[in-house]
């Protein structure tokens, strides 16, 4: 017999490709904008941020400010939002064994939408400060309600949770619509939030969501192997030593927490959570130990690049990011689906 070598599921080449995608997206995100900054000067300025490097700045104070306080936080926020949405989508698909599961499945979006609407409606023009918190709380309440309701005599199964998610989402969306109708003058504000974007990105938003995103991302990545085992169904996974109910709860909590945090600062940017993990699944492999880390990296890169399009297509105005992700994502996804031999049944 040949000596056994352990072949890692995640090939180095793909990991490298994903990292390069992040670096490329990062450079594009920093360089493209209404004000043109020299690439070398900008890179020197960035290198200066590292504690052991000290080079003379070649940017004016204003340009340095644009780079470090406008574009860099927007880039970091874009990476965090894209990575978290794609990773949460992949985790939801694993935990529900349903290729159509998106991070919105269990009421996160509807809850965040209602929370944001309440903030906008009750705060008048002063809603900016309270909106992320209201959306975050709304999202978590939406998921908690779904989890509490999703229980039948046969226990808490994927199906009862999905059905409960549909009921809770419909109820919360109805509440949101009702409020909007009562305050039709604020419809535009509500919709611009719902369609999502990174227009208001600053270091404050990054600091706000970073702890939640880190906890959520690390947890999901640690549970990737268990999601692989769960792909053979609840009974077989239990017989292989997995505590299915606990794994499902942990992954749902982690994915929902991360999603709620990013939704609070970016609005409802759709599609990333479905197309990125699927694109990885269809081109690289079906193991969650491959899907999750690659979705994290490609999701971040994808969102940063779509954000660049959102801010350049009709510059100086900006398109809602959710519109771009769907416009770019849907045909791209169609292409991958069409060319793939291994379509998930």
């Amino acid at each position, binding site marked *: 017999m040949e000596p056994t070598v352990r072949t890692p599921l995640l090939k180095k080449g793909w990991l490298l490709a994903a990292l390069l995608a992040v670096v490329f997206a990062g450079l594009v995100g920093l360089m493209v904008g209404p004000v043109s900054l020299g690439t070398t000067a900008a890179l020197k300025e960035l290198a200066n941020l590292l504690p052991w490097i000290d080079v003379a700045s070649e940017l004016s104070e204003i340009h340095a400010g644009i780079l470090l306080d406008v574009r860099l936080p927007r880039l970091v926020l874009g990476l965090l939002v894209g990575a978290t949405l794609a990773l949460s989508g992949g985790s939801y698909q694993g935990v529900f064994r349903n290729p159509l599961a998106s991070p919105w499945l269990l009421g996160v979006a509807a809850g965040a939408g209602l929370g944001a609407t309440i903030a906008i409606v009750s705060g008048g023009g002063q809603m900016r400060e309270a909106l992320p918190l209201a959306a975050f709380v709304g999202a978590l309440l939406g998921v908690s309600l779904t989890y509490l309701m999703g229980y039948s005599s046969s226990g808490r199964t994927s199906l009862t949770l999905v059905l409960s998610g549909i009921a809770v989402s419909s109820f919360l969306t109805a509440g949101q619509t009702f409020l909007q109708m009562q305050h039709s003058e604020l419809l535009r504000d509500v919709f611009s939030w719902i369609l999502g974007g990174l227009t208001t990105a600053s270091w404050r938003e990054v600091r706000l969501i970073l702890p939640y995103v880190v906890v959520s991302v690390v947890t999901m990545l640690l549970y990737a192997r268990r999601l692989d085992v769960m*792909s053979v169904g609840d009974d*077989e996974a239990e017989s*292989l030593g997995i505590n299915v109910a606990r794994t499902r709860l942990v992954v749902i909590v982690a994915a929902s927490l991360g999603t709620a945090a990013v939704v609070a600062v970016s609005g409802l940017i759709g599609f990333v959570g479905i197309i990125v993990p699927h694109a990885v699944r269809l081109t690289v492999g079906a193991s969650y130990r491959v899907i999750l880390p690659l979705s994290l990296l490609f999701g971040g890169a994808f969102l940063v690049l779509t954000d660049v399009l959102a801010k350049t297509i009709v510059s100086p105005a900006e398109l809602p990011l959710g519109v771009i992700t769907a416009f770019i994502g849907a045909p791209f996804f169609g292409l991958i689906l069409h060319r793939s031999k291994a379509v998930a049944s």
Partner: protein
Amino acid sequence: MTHLIAQGVSVSFSGRRVLNEVSFEVDRGEWLVIIGPNGAGKSTLLRCLVGLIPHEGSVHISGTDNSEKTRRQRAQELAYVPQTPVRPPGMTVREYIALGRSPHLGYFAGESVRDASIVADVIEVLDLGGLAHRDVTTLSGGEAQRVALGRALAQRAGIVVLDEPTASLDVGVQQDVLQLIDTLRSRQQLTVITTMHDLTTAGQYADRLLLLSEGSVVDKGSATKVLTPENIASHYEANVRVEHSDTGVVVIPVRPNPPDRPI
């Protein structure tokens, strides 16, 4: 040596008794086949042994109570293959078999070189080398059953529990799979517990039979003792002829009333 003891195992679903005080023992290296008409509680009994459903009574494996063990400890002692194992799309045969190592891996650890070598060994023993990189959803019924068996073997558990391992396989593939189970059992000293619909197959391969009817054990013992026309008539309501061969018992269904037309 006794490997598994079930004592007074009872299960009720919504007030209805599905299993009633089922008790039996299986020796190490023995093949126990559970038979009984549809709805007798065969699959439910297997699920109790695996620890998938709460039940009254106890199941002891190697002298210790199942209820005192964690899922992982149970999975290290007993491997289970349901009637129709789920085959996740996109998963390769090798990845699928490697899932069997799950109960042996640390909480957040990946596969070690030892795990990989066990998986490679299973692939070689089951002659699955040519299929190792195939998608599990593209396998034929017989191949899929061998691969499911592979996952169970990768668990390196002393007991293998198989629910209807030959259901929906043609007679040739059925024999291949059963011969394979029998060979592995003697080579690796495995204790095998299966349910079976086909009474002839049960009579050919079982060391001992357990006949369940309406949730209770109505007979147990050798094939010659259990597979009698009377037993089968009273519990399956079937008219059969029973013959004995060198390899075991053969049960032949016979039409209860003569046909109108001349034969």
